[in-house]
C-alpha cells in the first residue's frame, strides 16, 4: 500500500516537472524554447552513467559470487542504461539540430561521450548475445564491462579538456557547458533529475523482482 502511494507520488512529481518545464520561462535565454529539453535530456544522460555504474558494480560482484541473480542485475541495468542512452542521444541530437543546425558534430565533447557510452553498451549486449553457454556469458560480459569502464571517465572528463585546448574559440562548446540555473530553473531541474532517478531504480527493482519470481518458479518445477 505504501508502495502504491509512493508510486503515485512519483507521478505527481513528474507531472509537476512536465507542467512547470513548459510553463515557466525557458532555462536559457540565448537558445530559447529549445533549452527546455535540458530538463529531460540531462537526466537521461545522467541515468545512462548511473546504470553503467550499477552494471559495473554487479559485474564485479558476480565475478565473486557467481550468483545468476547478480549477473541478471548487471544485465538488466545495462538494458535500462542502453534505453536511457538512446533517449539521451536522440534528444541531444534533436537539440543540436534546432540550436546549431546539425544533427551531429564530433566537436561537441558531450556528444562524443554519449556516443562512446552507446558504443560500450552496444558492445556489451552484442557480446552477451554472441556467447552460447550461460556460464561463460556472465563471466565474459562482466569482464568486458570492467575492462571497458576506464574509457568512460576518459571521455566524460579528460576529453572535454583536451578538446577545449584544441578548439579554444568554439562557441558551441562554451555555450553548452553551463547555463546559469537561476530562478525557477534549478528546482525544476533537480526535481526532474530526482524523479527520473527514482524511476530508474523502480524499473531496476521491477525487473529484478520479476526475475526472482521466475527463478523461484523454475526451482519448483
Amino acid at each position: 500500500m505504501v508502495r502504491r502511494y509512493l508510486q503515485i507520488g512519483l507521478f505527481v512529481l513528474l507531472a509537476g516537472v512536465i507542467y512547470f518545464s513548459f510553463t515557466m520561462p525557458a532555462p536559457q535565454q540565448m537558445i530559447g524554447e529549445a533549452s527546455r529539453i535540458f530538463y529531460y535530456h540531462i537526466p537521461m544522460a545522467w541515468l545512462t552513467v548511473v546504470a553503467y555504474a550499477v552494471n559495473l558494480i554487479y559485474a564485479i560482484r558476480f565475478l565473486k559470487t557467481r550468483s545468476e541473480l547478480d549477473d541478471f542485475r548487471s544485465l538488466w541495468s545495462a538494458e535500462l542504461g542502453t534505453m536511457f542512452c538512446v533517449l539521451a542521444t536522440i534528444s541531444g541530437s534533436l537539440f543540436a539540430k534546432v540550436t546549431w543546425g546539425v544533427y551531429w558534430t564530433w566537436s561537441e565533447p558531450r556528444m562524443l561521450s554519449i556516443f562512446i557510452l552507446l558504443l560500450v553498451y552496444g558492445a556489451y549486449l552484442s557480446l552477451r548475445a554472441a556467447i552460447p553457454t550461460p556460464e561463460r556469458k556472465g563471466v565474459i560480459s562482466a569482464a568486458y564491462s570492467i575492462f571497458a569502464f576506464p574509457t568512460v571517465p576518459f571521455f566524460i572528463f579528460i576529453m572535454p579538456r583536451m578538446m577545449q585546448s584544441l578548439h579554444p574559440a568554439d562557441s558551441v562548446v562554451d555555450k553548452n557547458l553551463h547555463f546559469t540555473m537561476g530562478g525557477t530553473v534549478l528546482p525544476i531541474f533537480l526535481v526532474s533529475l530526482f524523479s527520473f532517478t527514482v524511476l530508474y531504480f523502480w524499473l531496476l527493482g521491477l525487473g529484478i523482482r520479476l526475475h526472482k519470481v521466475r527463478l523461484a518458479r523454475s526451482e519448483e518445477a
Partner: protein
Amino acid sequence: MSSGWTTKALAVLAKDIRTELRTRYSLNALFMFAFTTLVVVSFSLGQLSLGVQVLSALYWIIIFFASMSALSGVFVKEEDAKTAQTLRLFARPSVIYAGKLIYNMLLLTILCVLLTPLYVVFMNVTVPDWPLFLVVTLLGIIGLSGATTIIGAIVAKANVRGALFAVLSFPVLLPLLVAAIGGTNAALVGAGWAGAENHVKLLVAYAVIMITSSTVLFDFVWNG
C-alpha cells in the same frame, strides 16, 4: 617470479612465432592490408597532398584496421586447433597472457617496421622528429596490444568473432587512437616533446591501465 614463469611465457611466445612463421597468415594479412591502403590512398590523391593532421590519422587508421583483421584470431586459433585446453594445463593464466601479449606487440612492431618506410614514400611524408615519431608508435603498439589481447580472449568462445572483435575493441581503443594520432601529429609537425607531452602521458597511462586490468581480468576470461 621464478624463472619458470618467464621460461613458460617465452615458450608460449616461441610457439606462436613458430606457428606464424609456418603459415605467415597474420603477417600477410597485416602487410597486405597496410600496403593496399597506402597504394589506394596515394594513387587516388594523385598530385594532391594531404595535410599533416590527415596524414597522422591515416597512419593510425591503417594500423587500427590491420589490427582488427589480424589480431582477432590470437586466441581463436587455439580454440579452433583444439589446443586451448592443453594451453590451460600448461601454465598459469598470467603466463599465457604475457606470451600472447608480447606476440601481438611483435606482430604490430613488424607491421610498423614495414609500414613506416612505405608510408614515408607513398605519402611523401617528412618526419622532422624521428625519435618522437618512433616513441609514439611504440607506445601506441604497446597500448594497442594491451587492449586487444584480452578482447581476443573474450571473443574466442563467441559466435560471430571477427565482427564482434571490432565492436568490442573500438570503444576501448578510442582513447589510444586519440593520443597516438595526436602524438604522431606532433612528431610530423615538429612540435617537439613539449608539444607531444600530453599525448605521450596519455599513451603511457593507457598502456599501464589496459595491461594492468587485463592481467587481473584475464584469469576470469581464460578460466571462467
